[in-house]
């Protein structure tokens, strides 16, 4: 499949904006529509656009699968880790109130970490699946 100038140039222009939009959605979960799951999908979509225009090899140089697989596990670990931490601090599983002195503040940081874990996992798993499909032997 030969490449197209128009598509490559515009995708090159759009990809950083898409990735930043993903992180914006990630961190504004408390203020507007958004959260980890959507952010992960948007981030992965940005990388997938790069893979579509510049080829899967180029995309795998940006996001190497050997980094993605641990990242997918790290996201879950972060999620579980926050839950275990709250239990160690004397609360229920994922009871954020105990994370800080102030309950509201604790909830904020707890949700932020949880959402970060979700986002990292969703983005990595989507990309791993996408790379697995696009590089498979016919």
């Amino acid at each position, binding site marked *: 499949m030969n490449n197209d100038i128009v598509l490559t140039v515009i995708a090159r222009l*759009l990809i950083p*904006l898409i990735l930043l*939009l993903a992180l914006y*959605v990630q961190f504004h979960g408390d203020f*507007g*529509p958004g959260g980890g799951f959507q952010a992960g999908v*948007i981030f992965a*979509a940005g990388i*997938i656009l790069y893979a*579509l225009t510049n080829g899967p090899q180029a995309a795998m140089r940006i996001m190497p699968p050997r980094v993605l697989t641990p990242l997918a596990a790290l996201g879950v670990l972060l999620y579980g880790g926050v839950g275990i931490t709250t239990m160690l601090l004397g609360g229920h599983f994922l009871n954020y109130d105990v994370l800080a002195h102030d309950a509201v503040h604790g909830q904020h940081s707890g949700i932020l970490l949880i959402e970060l874990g979700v986002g990292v996992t969703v983005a990595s798993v989507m990309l791993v699946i996408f790379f697995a499909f696009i590089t498979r032997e016919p």
Partner: protein
Amino acid sequence: MFAATAIGILVVMALALARAFLGPTICDRILAVNMFGTKTVLLIAVYGFLTGRPDFLDIAITYALINFIGVIAVLKFVEGLADSERQPRPDEF
């Protein structure tokens, strides 16, 4: 006023869907779906105004970009399929 605009956009979307069902080629359908997607972006924006919730605009921005990526992905697939079926490619008509 916003309600009337939303209804107008819905009419456009219905017509686009009609073309998507009629076809006849795969590219006609993708064209109609792309048009449906851009109208969805506008509908989300207008709906945000209708309900007084400007938060919806974030979704509209996201949808505009995701719609584009989706159309490009499907097109790459169609193009690859067509190229693998017919080896010689016409560069002139």
